[in-house]
């Protein structure tokens, strides 16, 4: 299944698909770099799409479709400040995301996925520490100031 089909098969996201990175807030678009735009197969602002239904839940920010060979993969992207006191917030968000996709988005869940955190400011914890291990256990890579899709 392609990314777009998976998005459109997910009820609350049906109308939310945007081409390229257009679902991302303007301030967040520069946080993603991709030398080959043809690899980008759309995006969804999950946070906005699910705000009404889950106003108080720790919603995840975005889903970005990325071609990977003959299939698509999902890059689940969260733009958030990155200090060690934000680790628990990110972990709650990813746990919420996994629970939500498990219950409501089987088509998206079926795609290969990456969880990435882009820092909206300076990264205030080091590589190799407990924080990175906590994130790794949930499948989240170390945050970066700018995400390079070429490295996926």
């Amino acid at each position: 299944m392609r990314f777009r089909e998976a998005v459109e098969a997910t009820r609350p996201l049906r109308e939310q698909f945007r081409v390229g990175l257009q679902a991302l807030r303007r301030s967040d678009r520069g946080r993603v770099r991709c030398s080959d735009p043809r690899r980008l197969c759309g995006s969804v602002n999950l946070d906005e799409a699910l705000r009404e239904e889950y106003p108080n839940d720790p919603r995840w920010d975005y889903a970005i479709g990325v071609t990977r060979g003959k299939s698509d993969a999902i890059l689940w992207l969260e733009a958030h400040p990155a200090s060690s006191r934000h680790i628990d917030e990110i972990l709650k968000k990813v746990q919420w995301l996994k629970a939500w996709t498990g219950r409501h988005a089987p088509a998206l869940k079926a795609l290969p996925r990456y969880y990435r955190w882009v820092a909206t400011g300076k990264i205030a914890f080091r590589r190799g520490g407990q924080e990175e291990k906590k994130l790794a256990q949930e499948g989240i890579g170390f945050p970066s100031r700018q995400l390079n899709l070429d490295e996926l």
Partner: protein
Amino acid sequence: MAGVSLSLKNVGPIKKADVEFGDLTVLVGPQATGKSIFLQFLKLLLDTGPIFRMLRKHGLNWDRQADRFLELYLGEGTKGVWRPADSEIVWNGNALKLDELVRSKKKAVEERSFFIPAQRVLTLSREGWLRPFTDYRPGDPFTVRDFSEKLRELMESGWGRGEAVYPQPRRLKAEIRTLLSGNIFSGFTLELERTGPQKRLVLSDTGHDMKLPFMVWSAGQREFVPLLLGLYWLLPPTKVPRRGRIRWVMIEELEMGLHPKAIEAMLVIVLDLLWRGYRVCLSTHSPHVLDLVWALRNLRENRADPGSVMRIFGVKSNPTTRKLGEAALEKSAKVYYFEARTGATSDISNLDPSSKERAEAGWGGLTELSTHIADIVAEAAASR
């Protein structure tokens, strides 16, 4: 203090090392990349006269030959470290020639630096007493022999009968003693025991009637005691903050044999040295040392309260610890990575985890394995 720099070119494994010293300077990098050689050259440049005097006092002569001097100073088999055709020293912007330096008649002024070598455990004999300079072979490194001799002199002259070597109320701050007692000595005291003319250091637990000789100490205790005595040498039990004209302290691998909690205690001691106005140079393989440098940089940038420095170590804020925190936030720190492949150094002082420079993001390789492990686990967890 004014800016001080040392550049070595084509010396041992070093192709080019350019180091501008901070109040605290940390050297990291794999084994045999020249960190120790670099620190020993720094000592040589600071204390040329006193080093010559010490060697001559013990009948060691190098006939004004650079290669023979190096065999005495760095140790046996090291004469090839200096290659006359292409080795260079630039000290504070001035090019120096080693062959001229070893021929010079340097006046033996007071020492300006104190060197705590990585091989410090060798300074204690099996019997648990300090070995004199003459107990070593001429081909053993000068820094080890000199350190050993200084500790021996300290212990021969500085202690009254029945007086504990550790803890000592007038030596080290109370907060530091608390950390050391809990994390290294586990309630034991370090005592000087005399049997006739024989002296030895023992760890004593009077509550359980236990006296442990050197050979049954833990590896960490064996490593730490020479370090402790070195600190006693540096930190006079008076109101004077520093010893004599000493302004520089080099400590090789302060983490050697120590548990991370004991390393924490050592880092507080480093902050004490900085507060006293010593310039401290460390070589290390411990990410904890860089954790501290990184924390200080970030606390400084965020104008944190000085009390937060001591909170890192779980030490309560009081006027004494606050002074250490204030000093730590005022001092400059530099970190240099000695790279094995190129033989060059790079300034990684920012320690920015998101740096594009791999050496800086990975803290000179000290966090690389942990990082790599985390990446592999993240990949597996994401695909579940």
